[in-house]
């Protein structure tokens, strides 16, 4: 781990940044990472470009409820008679934004907690980890549902709840990684010359836990997409008349037998997105640890 994989080829391998670059390069070497990037890219493209190319506005009525084969629509109308294609093209960016924000905040907070707990040890470590254990006692979805049902579905709340539920899981992993790093000589050297603790944590430890950090980010992003989508599906996420893939599935599942498109399109998009994100994560984790599903090759 201490020697970057591309140390021989890259003369600038000493600069901390190149460690990440090496990780990405190794990960890119796996075919599955490329497939993952292609799949994720496709869905992200649809979500970002979609609103600009949609033929109608998301709340415009163009057909009868659940009507298919209407002139001027590709996939017919949804439960209210709004254009399915338009709502599909509009419904992606909210999911991406919420999932990205919650994964980002959760991983950042979890990293801070993990590094502090791993480096400081002692009572602070104990307190932080025991609090994590209590947070871990709630299944992610149940915690989100409890909060949503009481305060009501609000956008910032969705992000906050998912981020908090990610935090202890990330903290555990980063704490483990930190404990391995602090055994190294350079950390002891930094302590010996009297660097302040926060600098040791930010400059000596953090750059050396980037590999597990990136893997965690990928993993948490995949889970966030799932939780945001399932909250929408349960009617506890974004509220109507927003066009959102999860909500779209909830609204249109009653008419699934007559108008499958209104469900099939968002479902396929969510499936492809999560598969893509997970393939990238798998590639990253293989590159990071050089192991194959828990077994050293």
């Amino acid at each position, binding site marked *: 781990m201490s020697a970057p994989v591309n140390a021989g080829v890259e003369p600038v391998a000493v600069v901390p940044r190149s460690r990440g670059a090496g990780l990405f390069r190794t990960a890119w070497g796996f075919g599955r990472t490329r497939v993952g990037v292609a799949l994720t890219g496709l869905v992200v493209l649809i979500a970002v470009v979609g609103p600009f190319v949609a033929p109608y506005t998301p709340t415009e009525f163009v057909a009868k409820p659940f009507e298919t084969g209407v002139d001027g629509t590709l996939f017919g109308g949804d439960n209210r008679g709004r254009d399915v294609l338009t709502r599909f093209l509009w419904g992606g960016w909210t999911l991406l934004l919420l999932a990205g924000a919650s994964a980002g905040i959760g991983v950042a907070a979890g990293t801070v907690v993990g590094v502090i707990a791993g480096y400081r040890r002692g009572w602070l470590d104990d307190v932080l980890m025991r609090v994590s254990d*209590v947070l871990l*006692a709630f299944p992610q979805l149940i915690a989100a549902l409890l909060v949503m049902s009481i305060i009501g579905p609000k956008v910032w709340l969705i992000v906050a709840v998912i981020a908090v539920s990610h935090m202890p899981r990330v903290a555990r992993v980063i704490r483990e990684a930190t404990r391995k790093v602090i055994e190294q000589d350079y950390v002891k050297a930094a302590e010996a010359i009297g660097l302040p603790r926060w600098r040791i944590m930010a400059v000596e430890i953090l750059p050396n836990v980037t590999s597990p950090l990136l893997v965690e980010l990928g993993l948490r992003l995949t889970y966030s997409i799932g939780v945001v989508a399932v909250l929408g*599906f349960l009617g506890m996420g974004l509220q109507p008349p927003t066009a959102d893939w999860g909500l779209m599935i909830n609204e249109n599942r009653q008419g699934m037998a007559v108008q499958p498109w209104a*469900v*099939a399109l968002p479902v396929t998009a969510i499936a492809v997105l999560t598969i893509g994100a*997970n*393939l990238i994560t798998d590639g990253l984790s293989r590159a990071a640890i050089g192991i194959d599903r828990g077994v050293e090759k």
Partner: protein
Amino acid sequence: MIRLIVVRLLFGALTLWAVSLVVFAATQALPGDAAQMILGRDATPARVEVLRDQLNLHEPVAVQYLQWLQGLVQGDLGTSYSNRLEVTEVLAKPVLSSLTLMGLAAVAATPVALVVGAVSALRRDRAFDHTSSMGTLVVASIPEFVVGILLILLLGPGGLGWFPSVYSREGGPDQWVLPVLTLAFAVAPPIIRMMRATMIEVLESEYVQQARLKGVDERAVLWRHAAPNAIGPVAQVVALQLAWLAGGVVAIEFLFNFPGVGKVLMDAIENRDVPLIQAVVLLIAGIYILVNLLADVIGLAANPKVRVANR
């Protein structure tokens, strides 16, 4: 080892208590008060006042919490707001249905997953292994309700039409197929992966090599030397997956309109039925903690270092 288990158990109880505190505090944040909720908007102030007395709403929050906790320990979960039945009464049948559903899913998924994992390990890096590895990666990444909808689109009324997609009271046993299948797909991938990884590790170990070298029949090597050593970690993953089922079942029950605890929770949220929400969340968290604890204990018991040391 017994000391370690006792410590875990105590910690589990402590966690459960912390969870009860969180659930109670969360429901305290609700606007309006319980008496008004039960009686509805057009109740006279006098009646609301009487009920407030009965529910001890005049007491300080800490006293209310202790009373609630006391009831909880005695198995009294309060009265549901929406239909004024005892919560335990409302929950009895759904809990049974949910447990049956989870049990069926576990029974369907576990043996298949173990066999697939073991065969992958034996056929390592061949076509079967690659297919199952890719398959588990793909299935594990998709949210479980999406798996359910894909199954409905494929096998339900709109697709091949083999199985009904909505649970109804009059329906036959075939309406169980899709929910069970969905949950089985959700729990299987981690079990397959763990089984594969553990089997590979065991097959490469020195004691298995030794058994082979001394000329033991390959089948005996597998069943007497390899498999027993793979049980510990795999059993732990199976337990963790069962714990996951406790929370994962909510979206699936909502999707298939299955009358279990998940459905009760969603209905309770719809009606803002606080005692019912509290009870279901506590129940799910309780099962989750308990099964996680079980996984911990299995992990400890299967680890020879722990088993033999400080007996």
